[in-house]
């Protein structure tokens, strides 16, 4: 009798935990559903092609223009520019942490990277606005320090921790035997890192880079406060821009409830979601497909 009762409890608990774990699936699906419910109606007014490739975003003028190409361009360019800074810095820091640093230095540098990751985005945006923007304005003698360049640098430091910690995990799980083999053949430590360790850890590093870029393209507060806010096609890196998240965050409060503008912002949210979703799927694909050398399957 007791055993029977215990087994019922067992089954119940297992189902309970499964149901709760399935919540993540439900939530993700619900996010998609609600984005679509509130975003699709705009496509009665404007075709998907004109929405995505329209060059003008003037949602409040009459008649309004709902073309988000400038916003998409801004998001992509900002992500690209910040990757130029974040990828080398993040990966090199990861190499330093896992291959070169002494235990003491590790204990200092690793928390630094973790703290960088923990800084609230609004604080980084605020810093970019009140400290870095005036500095840029004076140094480069430009009209405004709130521009694409500033946003890219601020975003780079938000991507570095992601890139660094995932790359570091990948590098440190490269089997010791591979390294020892290379060293015993007479290669220097540096040659071992570039010719053996990095190629072996490449899939992990790529995953880190993609997830870092996903974080940048979705980051809201920094681009909202620092990118300048002009919904125009950028022609120089010192132009103010308005990436997708900034547009959504800045305009949602003013958009009339369930008006065209409101629907258009949700549709922009769909595009943004598709971008980050794609980044995440690619990262997942790479980390599954190219299992790290020497990793136990």
């Amino acid at each position, binding site marked *: 009798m007791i055993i029977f009762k215990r087994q019922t409890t067992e089954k119940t608990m297992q189902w309970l935990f499964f149901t709760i774990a399935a919540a993540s699936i439900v939530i993700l699906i619900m*996010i998609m559903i609600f984005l679509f419910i509130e975003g699709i109606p705009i496509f009665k007014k404007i075709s998907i092609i004109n929405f995505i490739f329209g060059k003008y975003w003037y949602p409040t003028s009459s008649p309004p223009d709902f073309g988000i190409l400038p916003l998409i361009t801004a998001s992509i360019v900002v992500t690209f520019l910040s990757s130029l800074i974040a990828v080398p810095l993040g990966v090199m820091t990861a190499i330093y942490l896992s291959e070169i640093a002494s235990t003491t230095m590790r204990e200092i540098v690793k928390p630094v990277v973790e703290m960088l990751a923990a800084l609230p985005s609004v*604080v980084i945006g605020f*810093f970019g606005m009140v400290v870095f923007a005036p500095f840029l304005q004076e140094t480069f003698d430009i009209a405004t320090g709130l521009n694409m360049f500033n946003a890219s640098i601020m975003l780079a430091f938000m991507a570095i921790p992601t890139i660094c910690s995932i790359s570091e995990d990948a590098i440190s799980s490269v089997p010791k035997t591979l390294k020892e083999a290379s060293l015993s053949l007479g290669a220097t430590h*540096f040659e071992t890192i570039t010719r053996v360790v990095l190629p072996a850890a490449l899939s992990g590093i790529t995953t880190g880079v993609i997830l870092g870029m996903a974080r940048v393209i979705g980051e809201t507060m920094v681009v909202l406060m620092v990118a300048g806010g002009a919904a125009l096609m950028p022609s120089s890196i010192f132009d103010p821009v308005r990436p997708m998240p900034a547009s959504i965050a800045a305009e*949602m409060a003013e958009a009339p409830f369930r008006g065209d503008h409101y629907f258009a912002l949700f549709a922009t949210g769909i595009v943004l979601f598709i971008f980050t979703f794609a980044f995440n799927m690619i990262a997942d694909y790479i980390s599954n497909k190219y299992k790290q050398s020497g990793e136990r399957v």
Partner: protein
Amino acid sequence: MQNIYFHKRRKIVEKIFFGIFRLSSAINALALFIIIYFIVGKGMQAISWTFLTEMPTDSMTKGGILPCIIGTFILSLCSIGIAFPIGVSSAIYLNEYAKSGTVLRIIRLCINNLAGVPSVVFGLFGLAFFVIWLNLGVSLISGSLTLAVLTLPVIIGATEEALKAVPHTYREASLALGATKWQTIYKVVLPTALPGILTGGILGLARAAGETAPIMFTAAVFYNPSLPSSIFSKIMALPYHIYVLATAGTEIEKTRPLQYGTALVLIVLVLGMNLIAIIYRSKLRRRMR
């Protein structure tokens, strides 16, 4: 002879590149230092007892930030209150019950994707679902639920790590004594993993406290003359307060010290919690070894 030169050159190349690697780590530290230096340096001037304990006055240009501090505390505690049980249970399923297969892969994929959803999209979801569809309005509860969804992957990740650190021999010993799986989890695995799980909770709390975009449309308001009295109150929060004062206020320059002060309070809160978690975790790891 040539060989020696060749070898020397290789050594020099190594020195140069290791120097570059060191430098790049130093750049991170420098960036963190500069940000903290400016916020702390200028924020300290604004901090006073009245700043921390009084309501804003003179249409937000003077006075304190008490409602924002309280708002942020309540908001992040409520969201963790919701996300913590769900996150821990999910992690228990993933690490203790699930067998590798399609179901597990799909759940993991969803959690990874959930972790990658942009914060402003969580805001849109919160607006469409909690605020409008469930008709909860712009309120503490809508904001907490939205933040709970956002912190869920953080808690799941940390809890899983804690569960993985429990040696398999513990589970085997318990099972060998005739305990069922649930008894083993409840009496052996969870108590051992508890400190690690709590660390995850603290990290989730810090994350929720620092987020702005998800609460912009769901919970936060520019000014609320009274402190929150129910879960349906609109609330003020530190991150949103910084954003509003720095971008939308009528006297942006005049309120600069208030902005720095608020930013300082926020980073002390968030980095403080993170530091506690980091130190605690490294202690745990050392003990585990």
